């Protein structure tokens, strides 16, 4: 479903930046039967910085929504594949927005634009010239005091191979006293620390050839940083950070958007702790009792004595 849709887009953006094309806004609309043409490259609109940022975000979001609608309506995989050529070039929009923000660091609209850019552009490792890396750097340089900066942490919470992600979370945690920002930075830092500890275990089992290949992708220092981390201490701190979120009402009430829903960090922290503590190798499996697709009752414990492959699935 949407998760795979976005993953697909991210991969495509990464490997195949949309081809530059002549802007052709006034061209008459052609019949659908003709070969699909990639959307025109975005152009910086006239206006004040805030208006420029808003217009670019609106244009791109609308184009993506329209593309998504078509994509979901496509009847076959082949049809979907063909549609990828029509995907709006979010990288190009993000680059324009970062340009505006760089020129106008004091403008509050720059902050919203930069957050949009880090959330909507691809994240190739090690690069410093991508819209993502530039937006991240600008947020830290010009907007660290912004009360919305916790959103940057949330965006980076799975980037455990990026040493900057952890540092940013630490920095924001130390600088802001607002509970919502504290909660967002804590949540992100917890996930990053835990993932780094798990990754260290994995990396230390690899043969040198596999390790070299990862060093090439992510950078020697980034990999060394993960391998040298104190695994037990990182896991312990990760749990403590999440515990605080579940215990403090102000922290727990902070929200995060997932698709079109809003979830509280209190709930998310609790689920994450449950996974870390209970869903681990050697732990007794928690009972699942409910009903099957036909409405008949079904219990996991009915299958004790058998090996069970517990498969969370959906047809998408």
């Amino acid at each position: 479903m949407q998760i795979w849709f976005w993953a697909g887009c991210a991969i495509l953006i990464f490997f195949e930046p949309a081809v530059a094309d002549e802007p052709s806004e006034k061209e008459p609309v052609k019949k659908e039967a003709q070969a699909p043409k990639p959307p025109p490259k975005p152009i910086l609109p006239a206006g004040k910085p805030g208006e420029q940022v808003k217009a670019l975000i609106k244009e791109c979001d609308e184009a993506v929504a329209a593309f998504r609608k078509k994509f979901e309506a496509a009847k076959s995989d082949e049809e979907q594949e063909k549609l990828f050529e029509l995907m709006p070039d979010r990288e190009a929009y993000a680059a324009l927005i970062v340009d505006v923000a760089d020129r106008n660091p004091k403008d509050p609209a720059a902050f919203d634009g930069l957050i949009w850019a880090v959330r909507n552009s691809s994240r190739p490792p090690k690069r410093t010239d991508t819209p993502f890396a530039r937006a991240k750097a600008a947020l830290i340089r010009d907007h660290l005091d912004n009360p919305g900066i916790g959103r940057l942490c949330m965006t980076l919470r799975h980037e455990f191979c990026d040493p900057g992600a952890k540092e940013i979370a630490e920095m924001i945690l130390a600088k802001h006293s607002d509970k919502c920002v504290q909660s967002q930075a804590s949540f992100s830092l917890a996930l990053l620390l835990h993932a780094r500890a798990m990754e260290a275990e994995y990396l230390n089992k690899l043969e040198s050839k596999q390790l070299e290949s990862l060093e090439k992708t992510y950078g020697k220092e980034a990999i060394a940083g993960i391998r040298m981390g104190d695994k037990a201490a990182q896991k312990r701190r990760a749990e403590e950070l999440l515990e605080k979120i579940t215990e403090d009402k102000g922290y727990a009430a902070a929200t995060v958007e997932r698709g079109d829903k809003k979830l509280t960090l209190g709930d998310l922290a609790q689920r994450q702790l449950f996974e870390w503590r209970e869903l681990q190798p050697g732990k007794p499996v928690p009972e699942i009792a409910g009903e099957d697709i036909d409405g008949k009752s079904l219990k996991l414990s009915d299958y004790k004595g058998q090996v069970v492959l517990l498969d969370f699935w959906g047809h998408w």
Partner: protein
Amino acid sequence: MYPHERSLVEKFHGKPFVILGINSDPNREIVKTVSVKEKLTWRSFWDGGSTDGPIASQWNVTGWPTVYLIDHKGLIVRRIGMSKEDDNLIEEKVQEAEKAGKK
């Protein structure tokens, strides 16, 4: 995914092995249609018609498919995928279950 699961069901036919789904589709009709079309013979929990269902939420599942292997004693072995190594692990656990069953 479906062909791999079907092959496991076939491979361990008559042995102490079962697939149990936890389904997050938006409606039951989709599941019924797919199950017939793809010959999915195993049962699935109905998780309320969304990816935010109670079971997936409790288990902190945010990516699909997510698959856990549970042994005959009801202990979590680990999360698995579809690699050869994972298939071998399933086989190993089924053999353990068979041995335990014969005692």
